[in-house]
């Protein structure tokens, strides 16, 4: 009974780890820019690796090797999002522009100008409201 429960828990953990790692692989290949790819690499890949390592620790049982596996699990859980954050931050400081809805619609060069006109128009609306209050 306990052996059957352990067997199916290992199978469920391995299949869940494979699923999340597959989602991570599809995200790194298909997503449009470096920031979205760093997002999927930091979260989904960490969860997939953690589930697969938990399955290995559960299969090894009470011995010294499972202590190594649990240490490896905590190390991956700490360092994998840290590494993805460092990569995304180096991309931001290098000056890589993120893909937005505007830049995906009509190219990268129009994106800062439309953003600035949006800010100016909102400022003009606020100013006209104040002016209308004064003239009335």
């Amino acid at each position, binding site marked *: 009974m306990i052996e*059957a429960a352990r067997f199916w828990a*290992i199978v469920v953990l391995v299949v869940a780890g494979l699923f999340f790692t597959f989602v991570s692989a599809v995200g790194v290949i298909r997503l449009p820019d470096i920031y979205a790819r760093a997002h999927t690499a930091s979260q989904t890949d960490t969860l997939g690796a953690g589930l697969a390592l938990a399955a290995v620790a559960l299969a*090894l049982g009470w011995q010294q090797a499972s202590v*190594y*596996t649990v240490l490896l699990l905590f*190390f991956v859980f700490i360092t994998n999002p840290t590494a*993805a954050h*460092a990569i995304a931050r180096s991309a931001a400081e290098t000056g*890589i522009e993120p893909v937005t809805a505007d830049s995906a619609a009509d190219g990268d060069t129009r994106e800062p100008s439309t953003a600035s006109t949006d800010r100016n128009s909102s400022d003009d609306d606020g100013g006209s409201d104040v002016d209308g209050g004064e003239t009335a």
Partner: protein
Amino acid sequence: MIPSSVSIEEIFLLAAALFVVLAIMMFYRAVAGPTTQDRLLAVNVLGTNTVVILALLAAGLDEPWFLDVALIYALLNFLMAVAISKFTVERGGVL
């Protein structure tokens, strides 16, 4: 009820083979990524997959010393990602 046709070692070896396929998918982004950070991120995810493959092989082949290799690989993978991402920002600043 444990199925008698498949053992737990075969499940680990099959999962390791599928993880190898997912790691090979990462080579597309490592080769075709437009920026340096894309390639670095793809190599980082590939290294994490390699750590998981080594752990699955340690359980599947019943060779526990593979876990030592996986631990050292995880350490070097993290060090590589942080060092190269630091190196791309201020070139020659830390290395």
